């Protein structure tokens, strides 16, 4: 006769072995239930994420074509070709250039917008709508709007330049200005996202801190510089990293604003992946470029992790 002391699970049986067996059984049951809960996600995860990652690596070592031809193992030939392909480096350069050009205004303007809106000026609803609304638009829609604005003959952008007595530009049709045009459209399109992240971070700062500072005679400027800004550190690191990662994936708007025409000054790395795979039908080569691009992203991710860790340590 065994009496377990646990009041809710008192099991009285004649055999001593009964309790362990029962426990093992309930543990097996929990395993089974767990996997049942996980199964739908895991199935999708394996089919549409894990296996494609592995299969992409396999494909990158073959000369597989979209038409089904090829597929034999060619070792590192694709990678060797990618690393010596001037077009690959050009599109990598364009991507990094776009990232630099777009990230700075996308973070600075977002901070400015959030700082102004956080001051509690009436009309919060309208400010949020104005700044965030473009983010809700599809890349197709924003491309159409900006192609129209950047029209060299009848576009509004040149009307504005004219108003200020400046020379009209060919915008998207000039290789010197087409990347700049894409950056302007992108800043307009996506700054609202960073704005909302900054705003959320600012609204987490306890109001007591401002009140205390105010009692000590700190004015609004002083409050912003010594209370708001220092506490936005973690948010800024996050926004910066997310923005760099998002900018590196440039494709949709650049592709559509130029009407699908490849320009040597705007072709991004994702566009080159697309062209190699779906225009030249070279799946193997395209997969290899994908992984060169992925390596770049991983390097940035690792750098971010290291920076964050150092920040954390210096705070301790």
């Amino acid at each position: 006769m065994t009496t377990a002391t646990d009041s809710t699970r008192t099991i009285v049986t004649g055999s001593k072995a009964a309790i362990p067996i029962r426990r093992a059984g309930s543990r097996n049951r929990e395993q089974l239930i767990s996997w049942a809960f996980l199964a739908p996600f895991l199935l999708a995860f394996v089919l549409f994420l894990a296996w494609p990652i592995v299969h992409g690596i396999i494909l990158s070592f073959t000369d597989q074509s979209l038409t089904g031809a090829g597929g034999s193992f060619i070792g590192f030939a694709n990678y060797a070709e990618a690393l010596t392909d001037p077009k690959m480096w050009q599109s990598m350069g364009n991507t990094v250039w776009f990232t630099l050009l777009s990230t700075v205004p996308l973070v600075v303007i977002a901070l400015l917008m959030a700082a102004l809106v956080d001051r509690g000026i009436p009309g919060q609803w309208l400010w949020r709508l104005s700044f965030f609304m473009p983010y809700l638009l599809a890349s197709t829609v924003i491309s159409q709007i900006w192609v129209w604005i950047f029209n060299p003959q009848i576009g509004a952008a040149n009307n504005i330049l004219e108003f200020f007595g400046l020379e009209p530009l060919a915008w998207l049709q000039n290789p010197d200005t087409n990347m700049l045009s894409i950056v302007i459209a992108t800043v307009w399109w996506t700054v609202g996202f960073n704005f909302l992240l900054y705003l959320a971070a600012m609204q987490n700062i306890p109001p007591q801190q401002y009140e205390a500072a105010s009692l000590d005679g700190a004015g609004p400027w002083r409050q912003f510089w010594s209370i708001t800004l220092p506490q936005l550190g973690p948010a800024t690191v996050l926004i910066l990293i997310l923005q760099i990662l998002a900018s590196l994936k440039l494709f949709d708007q650049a592709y559509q604003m130029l009407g699908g025409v490849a320009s040597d000054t705007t072709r991004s790395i994702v566009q080159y992946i697309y062209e190699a795979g779906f225009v030249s039908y070279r799946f193997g080569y395209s997969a290899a470029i994908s992984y060169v691009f992925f390596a770049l992203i991983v390097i940035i991710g690792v750098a971010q992790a290291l920076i964050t860790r150092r920040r954390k340590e210096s705070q301790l």
Partner: protein
Amino acid sequence: MMSTATLTETITTTKPARARRPHLPGEKPFGVLRISALVVLIVLAVGWLLPFLWAIATAFKTETDAASGDPSWIGASGPTIEAFTAILSQGNVYTWAFNSLWTSIAVTLITLTISALAAYAFSRLDFTGRKWLFVAIIASIVVPPQVLIIPLFYEMLAFNMIDTYWGLILPQVVAPAMVFILKRFFDAIPIELEDAARVDGASRLRIFWSIVLPLSRPILASVAIFVFIGAWNNFLWPFLVINDTTLMTLPVGLQTVISAYGVQYAQVMAQAVLAALPLIIVFIIFQKQIVKGVATSGFGGQ
């Protein structure tokens, strides 16, 4: 990941939202600083609204007025809705809008269901390999979908899913970041609530359905909004996997007719405005939830 986790924590664990203060303490309501802040804010807001307002203005012009290059807000021949009627008389726009709507809803529902179930298992159940499986899923957040277009397309070819709704929907439903967000939320729900139900003999599925999910409504809404916007605006994958005009989503479909219209700017703008309208209306109605949803699920959008 560290900074990501920290910020989510600061955002999601905010207890009550800070009461909106009318102005910074110690600041005069009509001080110079406040007035100049208002001016800068107005300039920025106008600058941000202008491109879209200009598109609307163009959409209400005749093609001749639009192409005249006259920068006035109303065309010389007066406002007209002929560009809109021209667009709406072509059947495809309705088809694309319908496809966009239902495939985005499908992506959202499937993503939400499978992610919530998995997140619950990671949060509450004990099973072999739980830790490393979770780490693997979180690690996969760094993989940009753009990197996988080649193997995914190859897979869709093998499954015979090119030019099908399933081929469009299924590859979009895996959202490891959402599993992470939901698990963190489930972790914060007091386990005592569930223990009581377990003593009463309720099954895990029942507990999940009638205790955990109702408590998680705000986070589920955030995730749903975020996934929906992403699916509604997704361009690259639908562009690759769909060639059949009748199966296209709005972003892909609209893109095919730009060239077909040539220089019909009023029609192109009418089309852009029509495509933008549904999400703008949704935003105006659900602004609070969307703003909160973006702030909470923000980092999953990479």
